[in-house]
């Protein structure tokens, strides 16, 4: 098949800028054009129930998920939304992953097909309720016709359609008639009070069995006839380029097929992974570091601190205001509390290192990977291959974690695989495998960040003036999603904080130095540092004012009209119960992110100089709870992810070279260090909001606040443990 339209590179640049202008991120508005352009060339033939639902002759219901399952459990919740309105038997519902098709499977909050921003349930809620309800209506119409009864007399439960006369038929029995019914455009939705599945503990993962038996398919597991495995030697410094390379030894490794240069380094293709690894490690590459980052992370941090303190002038950079009201200038007199916080680079380090399978030949390019933003992966592939983005076929598999890492604007590892597969040619499958060391040193980190806070308390002990400076590299700069007034990913959580709302005079400023180090969203993005800065500062202010931290928060929330924060605070305090025994201290933190408010009370003691976290009482307001068990799972997992980083996580550079190559040096949380997380969900009828990320940023300040109570000393840099 060679019917590919071949747009010029210039045409593709037009599409790319349409993507940029269309706005590819939550909060950006005009986006009507992009999905149409991106879907040109895509297959859009779907069955009688549309692109999100199919029903097999045996009555099994298949829900098509437009969102990737990276562990966050969205497949269960998405399927439950359809099954609820369809009145399907939950035990005969399965989930499959949608192909790439931006127009059909667009994330309605993003303007692209993609998973991120804890938005899967939130953006799918109305859409999938209608899918389920339309399907139900088709069965009801079919049954009414077959039985010559009124449709409104018909009921449906567990995939069985019934009439008071005693007539009954299953979805399977009615299917032939139902598929002839045109799906209603505006089906009647259920009254949420009549839900029987949503909000119950019956909504459990559909993939637990596959994952408990080793049969779930990840990109790492893909085998295709004649497939080559590729590994790449990357520059040890960010921004470094290949100067020259000697592949003599690499080519002598049995199983190595070829060695060649690609834009991101030197690729080795081989008959299997072990040979690719041996070959790659045998390469001798000389690197051109002319444009590379050669500083150490301590040097970069020192520069950030000098900017924040005013010791260093911004030069070409400029301070941007992210929050300002009242007087910018601090008042004379009053009690002043100064706090500063240093946050290191963090690697996502998902269990499955980055990988991708690409087949590039005369036909449509085929990509198999855990594609988090298929629209970007299509666009970047099309730019390399020279075809329409919609012609790029993507099969999305389970991903062994991501935490944001698989969503890059340049589709970094996907693009790398496409370059290699294009060089190999002939449509021969190429599996690119990153070793753990490649993944750990490969960048796209949570940016190194510094906060400097100076608060003047009023006579009542509450903040009168709050100056807040944030120094952090921009995630958004130079991306199709950049270009806004301010990089929200750098300040979210400080910007819009109820504490700032309750403070009469606020001067919040952001400055964003550049570096060749690549940075990216890392589970909960800006909140990874802003939640810490805000929540740990509040406890220091409460101490200075001689007030209880919970009471201090309550007063500020009341002042700011932050009712959801108040409800979460009350729930945490009510569930925390009596104070723990001697040696343990409690720390409280509450933060809103991705539309949800999470509060935690962490019980902490010091054990051999390291914080040991025991019980963590968690309350979350995430709107209507679709899958309470998955919400609890995300609070448990999000807490571990946040705690792992808070206790141990740091990527450091020495003269520009990453010092942590693997889990021996990048310490992560293990089972004996994991807390016991209790999760309490605030009852709500509001539209569902985020769950995957909001559980992550709260634990670090909660632990810092417990340590403050225990030792009287604030925490000024993370991680807590540095050995």
């Amino acid at each position, binding site marked *: 098949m060679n019917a590919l339209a071949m747009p010029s590179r210039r045409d593709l640049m037009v599409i790319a800028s349409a993507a940029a202008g269309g706005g590819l991120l939550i909060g950006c508005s005009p986006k009507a054009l992009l999905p149409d352009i991106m879907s040109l060339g895509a297959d859009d033939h779907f069955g009688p129930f549309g692109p999100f639902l199919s029903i097999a002759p045996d009555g099994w219901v298949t829900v098509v998920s437009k969102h990737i399952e*990276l*562990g*966050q*459990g969205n497949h269960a919740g998405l399927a439950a939304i359809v099954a609820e309105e369809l009145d399907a038997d939950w035990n005969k519902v399965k989930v499959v992953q949608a192909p790439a098709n931006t127009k059909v499977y667009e994330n309605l909050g993003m303007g692209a097909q993609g998973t991120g921003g804890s938005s899967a349930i939130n953006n799918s809620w109305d859409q999938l309720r209608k899918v389920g309800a339309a399907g139900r209506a088709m069965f009801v119409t079919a049954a009414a016709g077959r039985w010559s009864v009124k449709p409104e007399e018909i009921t449906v439960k567990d995939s069985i359609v019934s009439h008071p006369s005693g007539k009954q038929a299953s979805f399977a029995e009615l299917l032939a008639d139902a598929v002839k019914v045109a799906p209603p455009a505006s089906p009647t939705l259920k009254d949420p009070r009549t839900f029987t599945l949503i909000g119950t503990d019956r909504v*459990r*993962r559909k*993939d*637990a*069995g*596959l*994952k*408990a*038996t*080793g*049969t*779930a398919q*990840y990109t*790492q*597991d893909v*085998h295709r006839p004649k497939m080559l*495995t590729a590994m790449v030697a990357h520059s040890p410094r960010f921004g470094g380029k290949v100067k020259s390379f000697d592949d003599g030894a690499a080519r002598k490794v*049995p199983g190595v097929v070829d060695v060649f240069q690609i834009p991101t380094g030197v690729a080795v293709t081989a008959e*299997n*992974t*072990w040979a690719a690894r041996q070959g790659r490690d045998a390469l001798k590459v000389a690197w051109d570091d002319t444009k590379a980052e050669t500083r150490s992370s301590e040097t970069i941090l020192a520069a950030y601190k000098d900017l924040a303190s005013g010791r260093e002038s911004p030069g070409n950079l400029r301070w941007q205001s992210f929050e300002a009201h009242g007087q910018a200038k601090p008042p004379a007199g009053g009690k002043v509390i100064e706090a500063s916080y240093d946050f290191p680079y963090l690697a996502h*380090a*998902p*269990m*499955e*290192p980055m990988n991708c399978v690409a087949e590039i030949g005369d036909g449509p390019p085929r990509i198999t990977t855990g594609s988090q933003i298929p629209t970007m992966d299509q666009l970047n592939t099309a730019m390399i291959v020279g075809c329409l983005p919609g012609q790029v076929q993507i099969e999305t598999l*389970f*991903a*062994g*974690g*991501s*935490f944001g890492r698989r969503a890059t604007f340049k589709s970094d590892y996907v693009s790398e695989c496409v370059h290699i597969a294009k060089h190999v040619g002939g449509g021969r499958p190429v599996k690119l*495998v990153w*070793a*753990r060391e490649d993944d750990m040193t490969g960048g796209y980190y949570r940016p190194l960040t510094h906060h400097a806070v100076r608060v003047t308390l009023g006579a009542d002990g509450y903040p009168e003036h709050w100056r807040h400076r944030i120094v952090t590299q921009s995630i958004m700069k130079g991306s199709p999603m950049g270009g806004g007034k301010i990089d929200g990913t750098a300040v979210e959580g400080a910007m819009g904080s109820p504490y700032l709302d309750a403070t009469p005079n606020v001067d919040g400023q952001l400055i964003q130095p550049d570096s060749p180090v690549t940075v990216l969203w890392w589970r909960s993005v800006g909140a990874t540092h802003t939640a810490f800065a805000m929540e740990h500062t509040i406890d220091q202010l409460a101490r200075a004012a001689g007030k209880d931290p919970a009471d201090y928060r309550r007063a500020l929330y009341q002042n700011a009209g932050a009712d959801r924060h108040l409800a979460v605070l009350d729930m945490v305090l009510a569930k925390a119960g009596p104070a723990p025994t001697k040696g343990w201290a409690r720390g409280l933190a509450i933060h809103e992110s991705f539309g949800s408010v999470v509060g935690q009370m962490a019980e902490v003691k010091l054990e051999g100089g390291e914080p040991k976290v025991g019980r963590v009482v968690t309350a979350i307001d995430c709107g209507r709870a679709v899958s309470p068990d*998955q919400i609890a*799972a995300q609070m*448990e*997992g*999000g*807490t*571990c*992810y946040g705690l*792992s980083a808070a206790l141990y996580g740091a990527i450091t550079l020495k003269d520009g070279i990453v010092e942590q190559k*693997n*889990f*021996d040096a990048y310490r*992560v*949380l*293990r*089972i*004996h260090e*994991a*807390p*016991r*997380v209790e999760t309490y969900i605030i009852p709500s009828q509001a539209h569902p909001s985020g769950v995957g990320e909001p559980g992550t940023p709260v634990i670090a300040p909660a632990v810092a606040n417990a340590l403050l109570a225990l030792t009287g000393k604030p925490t000024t840099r993370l991680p807590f443990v540095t050995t």
Partner: protein
Amino acid sequence: MPMTLNINGADVSVTAAPETPLLWVLRDELQLTGAKYGCGIAQCGACTVHLDGVAMRSCQAPIGTLAGVKITTIEGLKGLNPLQHAWVEADVPQCGYCQSGQIMSAAALLAKKPHPSDADIDAAMAGNICRCGCYQRIREAINIAAAMPPARRAAVA
């Protein structure tokens, strides 16, 4: 020169060089992909298999050292192991990538200690990283499997 490995009760002939880690022979040559690559340096436990009943990291086991050793992978667990039932009951997995290794470590633990304490679980499972942080459910699932009445354990084994 081909060598013979005993995997999941059957002798299989493999062609990889003797220094090749078992993990890559399982995954690439035999396409037994349950054991996962996570770190390659015995830090994460995703590649855990049983060598003569002991939980070991297959990324650090050159096949040349495995003649006559009984190798069991997640694919070789008999029927649905009680642990696998417990894993579903407690809804343990999130991304799932580490879970084969977790279950192989847990299975070796229960074979040795049918009723482990929390300290036993910590000691046996500390070598298995889960980045999704499913740890409290892993502990719960091991306790569920250990608490299964012998009749149910036999029934699901």
